[in-house]
C-alpha cells in the first residue's frame, strides 16, 4: 500500500442555509478544497461522496454522478461513488478515498460529504434520522435518535454515576470551541444553566445535549504522499484508518454504554498508525449527543470507563487540557449535516495539524477523527500526522 496525504481541504459554513441547494453546497465545498490544493478539476481521478439520505431530504438519489456533473466534470467521465453509512457516511467516504489512493487505483481523489437537511420539516428529519436505527424493530417501537442515546445515558448514569452537570459540561465546552470556529453553526458560548434549563427532548437529554439539524458540505483531496509536495507545503499524512461495525439495534449490544465498534475501529486505527493514545494531540469525536462524547472518549481508550465525565468537568477535554476533544465545536456547536460531518472532522484535523486553526489552535503533530453511524453500528476512525 502507498502512503497517502491530504493535500487540500474545503468546508462550507454550517447552519440553516436557506439560500443553498444540495448542489450549491457540495460545489462550494469542492471548489474551496481544489483552491486549497491548488489543483484544477481535470486533475481529479475519482470522487467519493458521503451522504446519508438525499433520497429523503431532497428526493435525489444517484448522488455520485450528480456531484461529478455539477462539479463540471461530466465530460471527464471520472468515477464518482456515493458512500452511505448513516451519520458515518463522511468518514467512510474518506476511508474509501484513502483506500483508492493507497491501493494505487487512483492518484488524486476527492473525499466529500454533503447533507441538505432543512428542505424538509422537523418531523421528516426525525423520521429520516431514525432510519439509521433498525426500522423494523426499533423504528416501529417509537424510537427517535435522541431517545436511543438517552437510553445509553440512562444506563451509563445508572452504572457509572455520571452527573447531569458533567454531561452538560460537554455541551458548554463544545460551544466554547465552536465560538472560535468561523464555520460553526453556533458561535456563541453557553453556560451550564443554559443546558440544564433547556427543554427536555428525551430524558435525561435536553435540547442542548443534542446536535442540531444542519446544512453543509466538506471536501478534502487526497494524493499519494510521494506526490503531495507537488501541491502543498503542508501535506497531512494519513497514519491510520480503522472501521468497524456492530449490531444495527442498540438493544442487541452486549453493553449498552460501550460502543464496541468504537473500541474496534479505534484499536485498528491505532494499530495501523503505530502510535499510542498519549501521542494524540486532540480528537474530533462524534458528539451527536453529549453522552456520545463521553462514551467516545472512553471507548477510544483515552480514559477508563466511567471517567470521562470527571475528565470533562476538570477541563481536561478543553483546548489546553490533557486530551482536547472537538476543537471544531463538534457536532454540537459546529453543526451536524450528517453526511458531511466525517469530512468536516478531517477538515478540522488538517487545519489543526497545519497550524491554521486560528483562535482554537492546539500545538500537536497528531490528531484523530471518530465518526459514528446510528447508535454505533458503523464507526470510522482516522489518525493523521504532519508529513
Amino acid at each position, binding site marked *: 500500500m502507498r502512503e497517502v496525504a491530504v493535500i487540500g481541504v474545503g468546508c462550507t459554513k454550517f447552519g440553516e442555509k436557506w439560500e443553498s441547494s444540495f448542489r450549491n453546497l457540495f460545489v462550494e465545498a469542492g471548489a474551496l478544497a481544489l483552491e486549497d490544493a491548488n489543483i484544477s478539476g481535470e486533475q481529479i481521478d475519482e470522487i467519493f461522496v458521503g451522504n446519508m439520505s438525499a433520497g429523503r431530504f431532497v428526493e435525489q438519489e444517484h448522488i455520485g454522478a450528480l456531484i461529478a456533473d455539477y462539479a463540471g466534470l461530466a465530460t471527464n467521465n471520472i468515477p464518482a461513488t456515493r458512500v452511505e453509512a448513516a451519520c458515518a457516511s463522511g468518514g467512510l467516504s474518506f476511508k474509501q478515498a484513502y483506500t483508492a489512493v493507497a491501493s494505487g487505483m487512483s492518484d488524486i481523489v476527492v473525499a466529500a460529504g454533503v447533507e441538505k437537511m432543512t428542505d424538509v420539516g422537523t418531523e421528516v428529519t426525525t*423520521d429520516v434520522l431514525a432510519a439509521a436505527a433498525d426500522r423494523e424493530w426499533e423504528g*416501529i*417501537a417509537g424510537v*427517535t435518535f435522541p431517545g436511543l442515546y438517552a437510553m445509553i*445515558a440512562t444506563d451509563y448514569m*445508572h452504572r457509572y454515576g455520571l452527573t447531569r452537570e458533567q454531561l452538560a459540561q460537554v455541551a458548554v465546552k463544545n460551544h466554547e470551541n465552536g465560538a472560535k470556529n468561523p464555520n460553526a453553526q453556533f458561535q456563541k458560548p453557553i453556560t451550564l444553566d443554559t443546558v440544564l434549563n433547556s427543554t427536555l*427532548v428525551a*430524558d435525561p437529554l435536553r435540547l442542548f445535549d443534542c446536535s442540531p439539524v444542519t446544512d453543509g458540505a466538506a471536501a478534502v483531496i487526497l494524493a499519494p504522499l510521494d506526490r503531495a509536495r507537488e501541491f502543498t507545503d503542508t501535506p497531512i499524512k494519513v497514519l491510520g484508518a480503522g472501521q468497524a461495525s456492530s449490531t444495527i*439495534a*442498540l438493544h442487541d449490544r452486549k453493553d449498552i454504554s460501550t460502543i464496541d465498534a468504537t473500541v474496534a475501529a479505534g484499536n485498528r486505527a491505532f494499530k495501523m498508525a503505530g502510535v499510542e493514545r498519549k501521542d494524540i494531540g486532540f480528537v474530533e469525536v462524534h458528539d451527536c449527543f453529549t453522552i456520545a462524547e463521553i462514551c467516545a472518549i472512553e471507548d477510544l481508550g483515552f480514559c477508563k470507563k466511567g471517567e470521562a465525565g470527571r475528565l470533562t468537568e476538570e477541563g481536561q477535554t478543553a483546548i489546553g487540557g490533557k486530551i482536547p476533544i472537538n476543537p471544531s465545536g463538534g457536532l454540537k456547536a459546529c453543526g451536524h449535516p450528517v453526511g458531511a460531518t466525517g469530512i468536516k472532522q478531517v477538515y478540522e484535523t488538517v487545519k489543526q495539524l497545519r497550524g491554521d486553526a486560528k483562535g482554537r489552535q492546539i500545538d500537536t503533530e497528531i490528531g484523530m477523527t471518530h465518526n459514528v453511524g446510528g447508535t454505533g453500528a458503523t464507526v470510522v476512525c482516522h489518525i493523521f500526522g504532519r508529513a
Partner: protein
Amino acid sequence: MSVARFWRKQQNRYNLIGTHCTTCGKYFYPPRAFCPDCRRDGKIVEHQFKGTGKVVTYSIIRSSSGNFKLLTPYVLAIIELDEGSRLTSHIICEIDKVYIGMPVKRVFRKLGEEGSSGAIHYGTKFVPA
C-alpha cells in the same frame, strides 16, 4: 410500512414469536434466521416468548414523529425478556413510574397506521407487570 412488509412479521409482532437456536440455546426476539454464535451449525426454530421481562434502560420521549407524535411524553425502553433476548418497546405507564429493573408484561396495542385511510398496524407493547 407497506402492507406486505408489515404482514410478513405480523405473527412475530402479535404474539412475540421469535426464534431459538437449539444448538447453543440462545433465544432471539426480534427473530433471527441465523445464529450469530453457531453460524451455519445453528439450528433455528420458532419460539413463542412468554411475554414477561424487565426494563434494562429507558428514556421518556418528549418529542416524536409519525404515529408516535400524539403519544408524547411516552416511555421508550429496552426490555430483557425472561428468555434472555432484548427488544425495544413503548412501555405504557406513568412516565415517573418507570425504573431500571421494572418487571413488565406484554399487551396488545396499535403500533401505528398508514394515515386515516390506510392499514392499521397492531402488535406487542409492554406495561408494568
